């Protein structure tokens, strides 16, 4: 256990250094926050424009998308954090062979590297939410978090992050074998989640095949339960037939499944890469 913990800590430290050591920490934190906040502003002005053009407000839809977008910051950063490790260690820093042959769990090492990104994104999420609640109240952004719902919130948040890490590692294992495109994959997968997981709009607006895709992705349930806890109203998202505990159960089960899957796929990716001699290949140049 102590080896796992030491690996995790060292990898998290390394991840932080790689992300942030090009500048001072405070400048890095601002940098990490400006991007997601600007992303939120795009949505704000989209709402302002359609409201202004048609003269009809829709505060519930706006609050729905605002909260969903804020929590989506975790998705982008966690997935990027996991995808990037193999690619950057192999192609850019060319350290993968030395890390890989050391007597540690490479799986835990990736988790550690991703952890630093999650920590930074916590700040970005909190600032985006605070901005919404304090400055966009008149546009309809409202949040509530009663004490009795707090444990549910934290459990769902933890499960959400775990499932994200598991998805990230599952797909990241594919980058063991991919010569290129892993950066694009890191952008594409969050893009799929952005559209199909009810992040910005209820699933019901999607065609039926799109809804089916959304219902098969665990993150859909994470966004659903998070909004049920935080928003004082509910929109018809197509999941109204399930109560909170059922949604949480879906999330829990899918987290466990994805974790098992991530370990299996990771080992398979590793095995195939070793067999093909691709563990330490460099292709960028």
């Amino acid at each position, binding site marked *: 256990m102590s080896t796992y913990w030491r690996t995790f800590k060292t990898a998290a430290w390394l991840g932080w250094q790689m992300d942030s050591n*090009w*500048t001072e920490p405070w400048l890095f934190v601002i*940098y990490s926050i*400006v*991007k*997601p906040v*600007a*992303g939120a*502003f*795009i*949505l704000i*002005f*989209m*709402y*302002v*424009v*359609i*409201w*202004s*053009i*048609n003269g*009809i407000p*829709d505060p519930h*839809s*706006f609050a729905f*998308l605002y909260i969903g977008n804020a929590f989506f910051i975790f998705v982008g950063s966690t997935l990027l954090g996991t995808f990037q490790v193999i690619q950057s260690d192999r192609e850019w820093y060319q350290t993968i062979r030395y890390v890989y042959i050391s007597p540690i769990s490479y799986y835990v090492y990736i988790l550690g590297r991703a952890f630093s990104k999650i920590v930074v994104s916590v700040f970005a999420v909190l600032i985006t939410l605070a901005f919404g609640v304090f400055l966009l109240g008149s546009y309809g952004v409202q949040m509530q978090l009663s004490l009795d719902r707090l444990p549910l919130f934290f459990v769902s948040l933890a499960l959400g992050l775990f499932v994200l890490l598991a998805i990230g590692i599952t797909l990241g294992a594919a980058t063991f074998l991919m010569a*290129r*495109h892993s950066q*694009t994959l890191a*952008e*594409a997968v969050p*893009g*799929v989640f*952005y*559209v199909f997981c009810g*992040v*910005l*709009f*209820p699933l019901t*607006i*999607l065609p039926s095949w799109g809804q089916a895709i959304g219902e098969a992705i665990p993150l859909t349930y994470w966004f659903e339960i998070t909004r049920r806890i935080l928003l004082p109203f509910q929109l018809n998202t197509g999941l109204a037939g399930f109560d909170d505990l059922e949604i949480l159960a879906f999330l829990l089960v899918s987290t466990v499944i994805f974790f098992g899957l991530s370990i299996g796929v990771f080992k398979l990716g590793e095995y195939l890469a070793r067999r093909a001699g691709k563990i330490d290949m460099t292709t*960028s*140049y």
Partner: protein
Amino acid sequence: MTAAVARRSDLRFRIGLNLRSIVGRAYPRVIGANREPSWIFFEAVLPLLSIAAYVFIYRTIALNQVAANPVDAPRILANMNALVASVVLGGAMVAFWLNVLWSMASQLYWEKEIGNLQLYMMAPMNRMALLGGMAVGGMFMTSVRAVSTLVAGVVVFGVVFQVANPLMLLAVFFVTLVALYGLGMFFASLYLLWGREAWNLSALMEEPIFFSSGFYFPLGGLYQSGGWGSAVAVLGSIIPAGLGLDALRQLTLGETAFGGKFWVLSAPVELEILVVLAVGFLILARYALAYLETLAKREGKLTSRHQ
């Protein structure tokens, strides 16, 4: 020295040298697309995801507005088409902006890292020919990608465009590209002195520029918001994509779209400003590159610290 001294430096030779250099540098970009056909999936289809997300936001809210006021449905739905079309046009322009950021601005930094920059800087061609080659190759490739995104957007989301003045549309599009790539050339020079900061700066110019230049909503909305919103919009208009998109939207959706109240300026005036921006950025790029090349040579930064 001997007769070997007779190397040419006349104007005709220099023009030939620089034209060859442009073609030479554009070549890897153009050929790259043929070598990697997977770009069709990754770079033409994937951008549709973010476009789809924004389209569904407008649709969700517009349908709720129709439900709240059914009598006004035709007007609301017409506005929805215009907004969805704006998103599709913005999504196509995103391809150019990302190309400018990642394949122009950051390119010299990248070339430095892989060891090409010193070979370029040692060669006798004009440095603007090098940047010009990068721009021509990038523009060509990205145009193909942007058109694919546009066509896919039209087919998937059923957007209707009305083009009354195709010549003006082409002029705006072309001048916007020249101005955008001129800006990219200017950035490329500035980035020459930076290391990893350059990568981060490019990353920082994605969402904030998508916002301030109105990639996914009419920029006039931001101009008219008053206070800091207007200031941000004015700053965002320095990026040629902002005014370029505004003019393109006017020319493809009609001046009366959105009730005619969300345009920044008229399309001809925007075209004039874009011409000024294009010329200005190219001149800036020329001088910035000459100055920063000398500075980099003085400080020993033309080669990577990894080498």
